[in-house]
C-alpha cells in the first residue's frame, strides 16, 4: 500500500471515536487527499497538456504552414488505418497536418461500394477522391489486429455475438475463407497474420468498385497501395495494387 493510501486508512481509523466537528474536518481531509492522488488519471489534464505541447512546439513554430492549412487542405494521401491505439499513421509514417486524409475503423476495412450500408466509408472516399483529388490511397493493416482475430475466430468459437463488430468484420469474410483454405493447418496466430495481410488486399479490390476510384485509376491520377505494420518486430511492408487489362483475344 502506498503512503497516500496509508494516510487515508490512518485517518479513517481516527474517525471512529471523534466528535462531529472533528469527523467533518477529517472527512474533508480524506476527500482532498483522494482527489490529489498523483497516480489517478486526469483526462482533462492529459488533453490540455497535449494541446499546449502542440501549440507551443508545432503551431507557433510554423505560422506560414498553419496559415495556409487554415485556408484549405491538399492532402496527397487518403489513408485507411485501424482504430487500434498503437498504429496511428501520424506516428509510424510521420504524417504531418495537411498530408493525409485519414479514415480509421476496426481492422482498416474498405467495404465494396454500397450506398445503403456503408455510406460513411463511401463519403470519405468520395470526398477524398472527387473533392480533395488525393493522388494516393493507402490501406494499412497491422499485427495482432483484434478485428481480424474476431473475424477468424467467430462464430466457430461459440462466443457470444457482438452486434455491431461482427456485422462490420464480415466484410473481410472472403479473406478469411482464402486464408483458411491455404493455411488452415497453421496455428491461429499465423492464420490471423495471413488474414491481416489478405484483408488489406481485399480492401484494395473493394476500392476499385467505387466509380470515382475507377475513374482516377483509368486517368492515371490515382494509385492504390497496401501497407502492413508489424509492431511486434518493428517492420513495415508496402505494396502497390495495379489493376490492369490483359488483352486476351480479338476476332
Amino acid at each position, binding site marked *: 500500500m502506498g503512503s497516500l493510501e496509508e494516510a487515508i486508512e490512518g485517518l479513517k481509523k481516527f474517525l471512529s471515536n471523534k466528535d462531529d466537528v472533528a469527523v467533518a474536518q477529517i472527512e474533508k481531509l480524506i476527500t482532498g487527499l483522494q482527489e490529489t492522488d498523483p497516480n489517478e488519471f486526469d483526462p482533462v489534464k492529459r488533453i490540455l497538456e*497535449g494541446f499546449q505541447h502542440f501549440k507551443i512546439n508545432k503551431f507557433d513554430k510554423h505560422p506560414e504552414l498553419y496559415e495556409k492549412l*487554415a485556408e484549405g487542405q491538399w492532402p496527397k494521401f487518403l489513408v485507411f488505418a485501424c482504430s487500434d*491505439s498503437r498504429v496511428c499513421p501520424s506516428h509510424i509514417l510521420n504524417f504531418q497536418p495537411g498530408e493525409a486524409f*485519414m479514415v*480509421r*475503423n476496426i481492422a482498416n476495412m474498405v467495404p465494396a461500394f454500397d450506398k445503403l450500408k456503408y455510406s460513411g466509408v463511401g*463519403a470519405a472516399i468520395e470526398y477524398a477522391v472527387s473533392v480533395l483529388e488525393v493522388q494516393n490511397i493507402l490501406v494499412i493493416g497491422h499485427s495482432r489486429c483484434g478485428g481480424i482475430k474476431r473475424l477468424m475466430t467467430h462464430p466457430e468459437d461459440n462466443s457470444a455475438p457482438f452486434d455491431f463488430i461482427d456485422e462490420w468484420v464480415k466484410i473481410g469474410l472472403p479473406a478469411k475463407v482464402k486464408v483458411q483454405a491455404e493455411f488452415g493447418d497453421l496455428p491461429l496466430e499465423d492464420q490471423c497474420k495471413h488474414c491481416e495481410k489478405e484483408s488489406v488486399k*481485399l480492401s484494395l479490390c473493394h476500392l476499385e468498385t467505387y466509380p470515382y476510384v475507377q475513374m482516377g485509376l483509368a486517368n492515371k491520377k490515382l494509385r492504390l497501395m497496401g501497407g*502492413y505494420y508489424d509492431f511486434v518486430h518493428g517492420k*513495415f511492408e508496402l505494396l502497390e495494387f495495379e489493376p490492369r487489362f490483359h488483352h486476351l483475344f480479338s476476332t
Partner: protein
Amino acid sequence: MATLSPTSFTKNFNSSVDFPITSFQTFAIFGPKLKTEQTHFRLSTSFNVRTGSCLELKAMKEPPGLTQKLDKNRLDGLTESENGCDLFQDLKHRFLRFKKHKFEENLGHFQNLAEGQAPKFMIIACADSRVCPSVILGFQPGEAFMVRNVANLVPPFESGPSETNAALEFAVNSLKVENILVIGHSRCGGIRALMSMQDEVDSSFIRSWVIVGKNARLNTKSAASHLGFDQQCRHCEKESVDHSLLNLLTYPWIEQKVAKGELSVHGGYYDFVDCTFEKWTLDYKGSNLGKNSRLPVKNRFYWC
C-alpha cells in the same frame, strides 16, 4: 470505362457454378493469378501486384479497341511510376525514422504494447488531414483508440450497424475505455456539405452520410439563421458534437456505464484558424436529457 460492381459480376459468371456467393467472389477476386505475388511481400519495397482477376474476366467482354487504348496509357504512365518510386522511398524513410527514434528508443514500452492495448480514451475525430488527434493532442501509441470519419459524426443506435458503432462497441465493451471524446473542428467540409444540402434528391455518398447530423443542422438554422453562412457552419460544427454526444447515449451499454460513472463522455472543438481548443464534459443526470433540451455540460474549458 466499364463500371464494375460485385452484383453484376456474379450475374455474369455464376449461372452454371454451384458455389455459395461468398466463396465464388473469393475465387473471382483472389484467383490463381494472385498466388504468384504471395512471395513478393518485401520490407519497404514497392512492386506491382498483378491482380487483374476481377477486371480480366470482365475484359473478355470489352472491345479490343478499349484495351489497346489502355495499353498506350500504361506506356505513357511509366515515367510517372518512376517518380512514384520516390514516394515509396519517402514512406520507407519515414517508417525507418519512426523505428529509430521512437520504437527502438522505447523498446520496452512497445514490447508491452505489442502484448495488448489499454487506452484510456476513445476519440471520434474528423478524417480531415489537419486535425489528427495524435498531433494536436499529442496522443502517443497506446493512449487513444481512434475513429475518424467525415465530420466526426456518431450515428444513433437505431440507425443500425455501421463502422462507427462497431468501433464504439469494441472500445466500450471490450477495451473498456474510461473516456469518449468527440472532437469537432473549424472549417469542416462535411459540416459545410450538411449545411449546404438542398432538399432535392442528391445521390452522393457524402449526403447519405452527413444526414446523420440533420438535427444539428435544424438547431443551427433555427438558432443562428441571422448569421452569415460561415458563422452558421461554425455554429453547426459545435452543435453537431453535442448531437453526437446525445447519440452516444442512445447506445444502452454506453448509457449504463455513464450512469454508473465508469465512462465519461466529452466534447471538444479544435479551431485551427486561431489554434484554440474547447472542451466540455457531459453532465449526466438521466432525467435531464430530453430530445429538445440543451445538452447539460460541466467542466467547460477554453484553451488558447
